[in-house]
């Protein structure tokens, strides 16, 4: 039994988000650009703090210690309630899920939809041998419930492709974004490689929480670790609905920390370390991506 499946969810759900604000800045091809100055103005990080398995609430900005590539940063807190929650639900409809499992999958999807509050939205991505964005972010809950219950075509599993799409959609959210991905854990048919989808995770900054059922997966634990999400492995789908509810609840209890990088501003991957004074279990994204600035004319 994995550590993730032994321990209660709340010990693991310490997700956070980094939003790299320079994603839309065009860059020259990698091989042709010697300029590696980054264009990141500020970075947002979703942080969950727990002590003794319980969420720690009421922390101030001064109690957060954020280190960006070895450089201590000045943290600020953003009131999470000022930003709406947007959930990307990515559900595996491939043939490796049996009919009974599929019913649990629908129930789990509906659990998330039912838990959405006014002003919050969800997008739905399903996948088997192709990815289908059933809906972009919407607050139309009846429609979401219908779409979650709609039959999914049987086929192989383009897990990498689906994770890429789900994380991209998360990056379009105007508020806080969370990807909840359910799969049997194995990609069988994507053109996108594991390396590519991990790179997408680094560049989009969307928190990815994963629930897998039964099978081993190499990429999914990496995605959740990298993005500050959780990775949960269940033996059967009948527990997934409850897990989805816990993931959503835990996400709402996170702090939203912001900082303006004060280091050398290099382009590329920045490693983040997040701690809190007084100690505690902190789950946070392990870094963020800073795109290179466009060369000046």
């Amino acid at each position, binding site marked *: 039994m994995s550590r993730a499946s032994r321990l209660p969810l709340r010990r693991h759900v310490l997700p956070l988000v980094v939003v790299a604000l320079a*994603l839309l800045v065009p860059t020259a091809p*990698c091989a042709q650009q010697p300029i590696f100055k980054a264009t990141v103005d500020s970075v947002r990080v979703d942080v969950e703090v727990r002590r003794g398995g319980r969420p720690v609430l009421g922390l101030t900005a001064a109690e957060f210690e954020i280190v960006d590539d070895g450089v201590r940063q000045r943290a600020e807190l953003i009131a999470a309630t000022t930003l709406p929650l947007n959930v990307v639900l990515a559900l595996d409809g*491939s043939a490796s899920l049996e009919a009974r499992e599929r019913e649990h999958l629908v129930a789990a999807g509906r659990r998330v939809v039912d838990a959405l509050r006014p002003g919050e939205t969800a997008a739905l991505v399903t996948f088997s041998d192709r*990815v289908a*964005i059933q809906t972009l972010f919407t607050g139309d809950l009846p429609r979401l419930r219908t779409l979650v219950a709609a039959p999914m075509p*049987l086929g*192989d599993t383009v897990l990498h492709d689906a994770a890429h799409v789900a994380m991209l959609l998360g990056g379009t959210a105007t508020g806080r974004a969370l990807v909840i991905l359910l799969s049997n854990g194995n990609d069988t048919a994507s053109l*996108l490689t594991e390396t*590519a989808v991990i790179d*997408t995770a680094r560049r989009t900054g969307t928190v990815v929480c994963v629930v897998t059922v039964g099978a081993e997966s190499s990429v999914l634990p990496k995605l959740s670790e990298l993005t500050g999400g959780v990775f949960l492995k269940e033996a059967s789908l009948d527990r997934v609905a409850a897990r989805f509810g816990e993931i959503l609840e835990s996400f709402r209890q996170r702090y939203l920390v912001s900082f303006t990088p004060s280091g050398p501003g290099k382009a590329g991957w920045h490693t983040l370390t997040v701690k809190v004074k007084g100690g505690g279990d902190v789950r946070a994204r392990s870094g963020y991506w800073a795109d290179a600035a466009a060369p000046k004319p």
Partner: protein
Amino acid sequence: MAVFHRLGLAARLATARHFHHGLLALVAVVAAVVPCAAQSPSEELKLDWLALVRSHEPGTMDDASTTASTWSPDQIEIVLKLALAGIDAPTLIRALSMHTDIALAEHATMARPVAGSRTTVILLDSRPVDRIARSQQWQICWELATGLVRRGQGPTVAAWLRATGAVLQQWADCDVLRRHLDVSLALFPQDAVIALHAGTLHQTFADPRVQQYVARRRTSPRPAYGRTIGDWASGPPGLRQSLNGRLSAVGAGSAGLPEATEVELGRARDFFRRALQLDPSLQEARIRLAHVLADLGEHAEAVATVRPALATTLVPFFEFYAAVILGRSEEHLGHYAAAGDAYARAAARFPGAESAELARSRVALAQGRAGDAVAIAVGVAGPESGEHADPWASYFRVHDPDAATLLAAWRAGLP
């Protein structure tokens, strides 16, 4: 008894819809009433079989092939021994044609396994969903093919092996294809196309859909099926793999299960290299070799291998494959502009192909164009996108020239 058997056959042939079948039925009737007493039962069987072979219209499942399909393995074995010893080569070639047609027809019927028969597992997304009986006709064909080579019919047999190899690859019927290639390689070790088929088979064995099934087989030798289909027939089953959502097969069995991914990729690489040594113009081998090299982590070599293929004129499917395989390795090397160009070429060849479009989206993101990345992804996978053909889904099945063309060409040359 043998006379009655042959008269029955003659009657069936006499009721055939085709005129030439009626003529042959007359021949069979004559044969049935003349010198039977002097012939052994084996000889009589052979005569019956010859009548079927001579009346069969290649490429069809006519009365002759339908009748031959009901013969037991024992009957066929007796006939084959006699036929291979004394029948002229042109007739044996027509026999090969008839039994091939039966094998093709039996594939379509997906016969259920019976006790004592060798079976094949059908997989869907690495999960076993059913079993079917493997056609016994292939064994007959391989014996005929081997006998024909001994009679100097090498070119005809090689063409048959290539054509039927393409058919089996198209079905992803890896169980039969593995044995087919064992025979093929033994007979024609210097045939580039056969080496190509062998490489593709091992590349298929390395695919996650096969590997995941094999991993489960090793830990649980009696896999559960999606529906009840009875107990195991004797012996371990073969594996019929679904590549890309369609039911399609790999030779399995405890001793015949595919090896680990790296082992199978290494075998595939060696076969593709051999194919290219034998025929440097075989672009399909070049493209597949590049793919295998990339899977082995040799991306720079993969790029150098596949680029020359894209400089030639390729059929659309293989232009698509060459482009996405190039794009993937260029992307891995951080050459995003080159990767984007390659993916764009693939997407232009098959507009709306999701795999290529999502790869374009990936590259756009890596180039810092997140808006473009989202737009491309939503455009191909969003609520407003339609269904489009995606060649990536059928990568392991496709061969150039396609199986139907090769079979038609082989039949056109029949005596």
